[in-house]
């Protein structure tokens, strides 16, 4: 066992840390708190930051250099994510495209499709959203019904996608569509659809936080060129599984930076009011301990990556841990802060360091997206424990 970063990884971490120090003008939470901030303005800021990252070679970490990526490994990718979290950098605008669609295209798309789609994705010239979930297909993704019927050189698409993160700001959507209603898995295909195609309507959906980060997308006889099909007809499910594999990674490290910083801020706030005593003290200490255990999970995954091991279904355990800890911690924070913890960030008197109210609400998302806690437990019981599924 050796949990020291290797010299080249240490050098990369130091280089990334120094770069962030020099190039990140202010922490994301301060941009969010700016009274002049608008949703469009924040999107523009994220677009600029993505371009800055791209120019410096910190985007598409695991993409081959031939496609504008860094050609690095999961180790550098996880290190960078932890450094971005520690520096409180703005979230990467095109993150769904870069982290999910990019690898799928690199592995499954034609040369022409890669040339067409990858460069503008990295440059934030085309923003992507993910069209997997439907009103009737969430955890049971293969129940999706949005249909694509070949008609000459086009697929005619009908149906609806929902919970489409970045939908309102996106230019393109990568979708799973049904090309054969009789074949549950083999009847699914992977199709790229431009959102200004006639017959496509994007409606923003207001989230629990009040923001419109996600939306719903309707397709009514939308004609999509058949060259936008990735892989062959019927390969969609297999490609989607590759995509979802890239949602894994040593995410716990970045979360440990982000949540850990907030645990210390909670401790400082309570200490300032003479309240870091008794039950409050124990709750903060438990959050600190859980955060450290989450960090240990992340270090273990990182070390496994570094020694050439690919994480399997055990990454589900990490996902359950961090998302459920996030929820517990944010609830604890609001309990301990009192009514002031519920103040909106724009409200007089709101805490200047953490947007506790938004974090409390936002924590409800983590146990639902990217495979709900229930789905993750099913994955653990099936693939790790080998228990028969009903």
């Amino acid at each position, binding site marked *: *066992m*050796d*949990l*020291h*970063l*290797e010299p080249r*990884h240490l050098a990369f971490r130091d280089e990334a840390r120094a770069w962030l120090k020099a190039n990140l003008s202010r922490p994301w939470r301060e941009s969010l708190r700016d009274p002049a901030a608008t949703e469009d303005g924040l999107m523009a800021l994220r677009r600029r930051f993505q371009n800055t990252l791209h120019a410096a070679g910190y985007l598409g970490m695991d993409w081959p250099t031939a496609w504008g990526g860094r050609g690095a490994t999961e*180790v550098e990718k996880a290190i960078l994510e932890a450094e971005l979290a520690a520096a409180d950098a703005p979230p990467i605008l095109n993150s769904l495209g870069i982290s999910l669609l990019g690898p799928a295209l690199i592995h499954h798309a034609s040369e022409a499709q890669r040339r067409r789609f990858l460069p503008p994705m990295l440059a934030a010239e085309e923003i992507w959203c993910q069209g997997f979930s439907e009103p009737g297909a969430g955890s049971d993704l293969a129940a999706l019904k949005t249909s694509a019927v070949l008609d000459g050189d086009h697929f005619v698409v009908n149906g609806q996608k929902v919970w489409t993160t970045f939908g309102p700001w996106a230019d393109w959507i990568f979708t799973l569509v049904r090309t054969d209603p009789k074949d549950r898995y083999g009847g699914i295909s992977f199709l790229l659809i431009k959102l200004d195609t006639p017959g496509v309507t994007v409606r923003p959906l207001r989230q629990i936080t009040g923001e419109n980060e996600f939306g719903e997308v309707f397709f009514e006889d939308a004609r999509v060129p058949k060259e936008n099909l990735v892989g062959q007809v019927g390969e969609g499910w297999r490609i989607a599984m590759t995509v979802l594999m890239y949602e894994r990674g040593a995410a716990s490290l970045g979360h440990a930076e982000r949540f850990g910083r907030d645990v*210390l801020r909670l*401790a400082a706030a309570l*200490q300032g009011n003479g309240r*870091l005593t008794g039950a409050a*003290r*124990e709750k*903060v*200490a*438990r959050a*600190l*301990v*859980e955060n*450290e*255990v*989450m960090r*240990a*999970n992340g*270090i*273990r995954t*990182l*070390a*496994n990556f*570094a*020694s050439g091991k690919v994480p399997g279904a*055990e990454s589900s*355990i990490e996902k*359950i*841990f961090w998302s459920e800890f996030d929820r517990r911690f944010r609830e604890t924070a609001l309990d301990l802060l009192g009514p002031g913890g519920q103040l909106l960030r724009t409200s007089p008197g709101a805490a200047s360091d953490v947007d506790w109210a938004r974090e409390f609400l936002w924590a409800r998302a983590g146990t639902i997206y990217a495979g709900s806690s*229930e789905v*993750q*437990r*099913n994955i*653990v*019981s099936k693939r*790790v*424990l080998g*228990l*028969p*599924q*009903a």
Partner: protein
Amino acid sequence: MQFDLSDDQQLLRQSTRDFLAAEAPVEKTRRAMEDDPRGIEESLWRQVAEMGYVGLLLPAGVGGQGLGALELAVVLEEAGRVCLPGPLLDVVLAASVLAEAGGQEALLREVAAGTARVVIAREDAAFAGEAPTRTMLAGGRVKGTKHFVPFAASADALVVTTPDGPCLVRGPFPVTPTPTLDHAQRFATVTLDQPATRLGGPALLEPADRLAAVGAGAMLLGLMTKAFEMSHAYVQTREAFKRPIGTFQVIQHRLADMLMRVESTRSAVYRAAWCVDAGDEATALACASAKAYAGDAGRFVCGEAIQVHGGIGFTWELDLHWYFKRTKTLEQHYGSTEERLEAALAAVGY
């Protein structure tokens, strides 16, 4: 960078597992846990010493193996898997204090050989919030009362904590057994008024405190791993409503929650052990977190194991109760959860 154990450490794990499976399965140790006043058969203790486990951390000069916290974690995890009775961790910790202090080579040689036992007496109160007793060292004598001294009746010497630092006390000393819910334990209250040798200042106990976090954390890991494995096997054979109960999602999700805690404990304990050996700056927080988390996780996992076993899980006959009870002992000793939570806060400046 790698999380896997080295080849030597994996060999140690395998040889320890083989040895304990042959010599110390619960069906063989059960009688000693129930009746033997020493808590473990003398012959087994000698074998444990011969295998090098008692002297694991001690220098070769006194018959030890000169190994580190990672190896301690490996051995204690395996000890946890069989719910090994007796004072292995207690003696390892006390010996580490003596080795740190220096000048105790003769005693340490006997300890490593399994012919003498020394344990730490540290508890100044039996109940939370009770006014602590004051064990004082003055004029070469130690006076006071220590609670929950592990396996005190069979100890040849004690490392007794005092405000001025730990001191060494040779037996005999008056011992009042205080049985607890964990029938395998042999706790006692020790009343002291006798000659003692000061070993050093309070800081002398700090390395042992870190090793206690790793050792107890690892033993908890072994206990909960075994309880989890028993449950995993049981739910696939036990039938209800004409099917194995492991086919029910409500049972599957319980097992998933157990596994999450087992594996998270593994990450935390081995990281803490590595930090101790590497002298990493995160050592204090990593040790405090690993022990605090392992205590909660152990109670949860062993408790859930009882639940999925149903009525049989509540019997004396099934081995599970030994595991459930030992996790409770480990949770409240070797730096209780409360103490470890405070240590975690202290490590980040609160």
